[in-house]
């Protein structure tokens, strides 16, 4: 007993010591006057080599902090007490932050790289004229299939998911908006539908999909697909590229009739202080060479057209992650729905889950 007690005390002291030590280390490299930039980004969503390159070029040190959900980031910025200079919300969150007066408009006269961005990725409904945001990465919602179980090239449309062939074969990502969304698209409706009858019809159509649904899971979907657990999954392109890195039998399709298009965007939150560093950083990240390096590191689709041209041909011509303009034109961005509509989407989705 005494020994156990001594061990516990020992572990405790070592932990405290290490924590103190790392705190000291961070302090020494941290806040050094005006030459800093406080970046608040998703985990592992920027090439660290670029951050050191930026520091070498400009002498500005980047402090990187990470979050794992839009909502967590929103709460932290809203509650204040932080001094983040830049953060990366998804498109619907840009709209929400804008409405909550948490964003600072971009000073376009200080931005030099905007001409590199493709016109399909600018001036979207969530931020007209890009008053507050610059796109960072974009992607789609689509279908991932395993060529051991599904004939390559045979699965092209949302409606095919309802085929009897795929009984108990499909995994869905546990998200009300996306699941209701592809059901709406399969009926030729918009993913931002607010008409109650149409939404009800979308739910009824989903109920018919239930026999084909093997499971509705969250992040684990990546692991399951990599392990050949299911033939088909509906998930985002970013997740798909990660799965495909672990299992070469997986392929990603954006159905030609349309899908959702998502964006992660640079924005300046109200908490920002180092404006000079912010614009230097945004311009640095817009430089095609740097954007291309970052896209290779992260593996998502870059909206920076000049950067895309610097990427290997195999990436540029990859229809899975850079679909043709015709498909891009059919992609729809989620708009921020009213809380009542969000509730309705979720209630209908819950009803579908009950049936499945």
């Amino acid at each position, binding site marked *: 007993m005494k020994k156990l007690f001594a061990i516990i005390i020992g572990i405790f002291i070592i932990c405290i010591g290490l924590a103190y030590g790392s705190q000291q280390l961070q302090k020494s490299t941290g806040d050094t006057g005006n030459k800093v930039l406080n970046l608040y980004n998703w985990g592992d969503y920027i090439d660290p080599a670029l951050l050191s390159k930026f520091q070498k070029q400009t002498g500005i040190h980047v402090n990187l902090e990470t979050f794992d959900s839009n909502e967590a980031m929103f709460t932290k910025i809203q509650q204040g007490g932080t001094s983040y200079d830049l953060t990366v919300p998804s498109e619907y969150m840009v709209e929400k932050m804008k409405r909550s007066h948490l964003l600072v408009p971009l000073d376009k006269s200080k931005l030099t790289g905007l001409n590199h961005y493709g016109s399909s990725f600018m001036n979207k409904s969530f931020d007209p004229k890009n008053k507050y945001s610059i796109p960072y990465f974009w992607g789609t919602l689509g279908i991932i299939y395993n060529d051991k179980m599904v004939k390559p090239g045979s699965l092209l449309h949302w409606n095919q998911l309802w085929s009897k062939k795929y009984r108990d074969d499909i995994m869905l990502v546990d998200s*009300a908006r996306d699941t209701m969304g592809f059901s709406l698209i399969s009926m030729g409706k918009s993913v931002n539908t607010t008409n109650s009858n149409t939404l009800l019809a979308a739910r009824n159509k989903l109920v018919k999909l239930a026999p084909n649904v*093997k*499971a509705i*899971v969250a992040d684990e979907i990546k692991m399951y697909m990599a*392990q050949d*657990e299911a033939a088909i999954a509906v998930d985002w392109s970013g997740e798909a590229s990660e799965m495909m890195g672990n299992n070469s039998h997986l392929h990603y399709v954006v159905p030609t009739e349309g899908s959702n298009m998502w964006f992660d965007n640079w924005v300046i939150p109200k908490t920002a202080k180092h404006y000079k560093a912010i614009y230097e950083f945004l311009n640095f990240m817009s430089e095609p060479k740097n954007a291309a390096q970052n896209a290779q590191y992260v593996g998502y689709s870059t909206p920076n057209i000049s950067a895309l041209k610097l990427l290997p041909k195999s990436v540029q011509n990859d229809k899975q992650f850079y679909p043709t303009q015709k498909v891009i034109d059919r992609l729809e961005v989620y708009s921020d729905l009213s*809380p009542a509509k969000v509730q309705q989407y979720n209630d209908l989705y819950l009803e579908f889950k*009950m049936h*499945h």
Partner: protein
Amino acid sequence: MTKQLKALFYTPYFVWLGLFVIAPVGLIVYYSFFNINHQLTLANYQTFFGSGTYLIMTANSVLYAFLITLIALLISYPMAYYISKLKHRDFWILLVILPTWINLLLKAYAFIGLLSQDGLVNKCFELFGFGPQQILFTNTSFILVAAYIEIPFMILPIYNSLTDISSSYIRASHDLGATTWQTIQKIIIPMTLPGVKSGVQIVFIPSLSLFMLSRLIGGNKVITLGTAVEEHFLTTMNWGMGSTIGVVLIISMVVVMALTNTKKKRRQTIW
């Protein structure tokens, strides 16, 4: 002991009770009367009891919680009985408690590894020529894994009440001519009922709202009230509705407690 000294001893208890029991429950009840626009309303309760979805979900949750508790009990009782008879019973009971030291999430992932298409269980099936079966994402696998996780909490109270039985009762029973089965039926089971009841209480309530397992192992094929609470708090941000479900869960817990307690009191008066 002076009055002040006494106060010193019971204040921590009341502070604890107030901060971590009464305040959270009070907040849940308070939130349950607000809709998504922060207006005072009874609409949440109306939605809950007026919509088939939530009622079916409640029925579902109760049914699964019942099955989980039943299976846990059926496995735990004989196990506790035999462990209490063993020579090194402290060691064996330690082995039963050991899995509770591992985080629930890790255990769930371990089960995914065991039950998946090319997991260990399917490998064994193949040895006997059954071919790979779909085990993950079935109701059976959900109930079994949940029962596995709850078993230590069921065994412990039963084991404690078994070891509390004085061996003289057993000897007296045998001396009076009772068979082993009669002894178990007339002496051991009635005397361990309090342990069984606390085991049922500890297992049944958490089983009503196992949202993580129902997703990881059940693939959301099993929808319990926990799933709905998670959704209301994390995606729709409708804390009012989530709290309403919480209140229903708390009330059902009180009901279960009340049902299991009255019987205990009656038995005590008989003795």
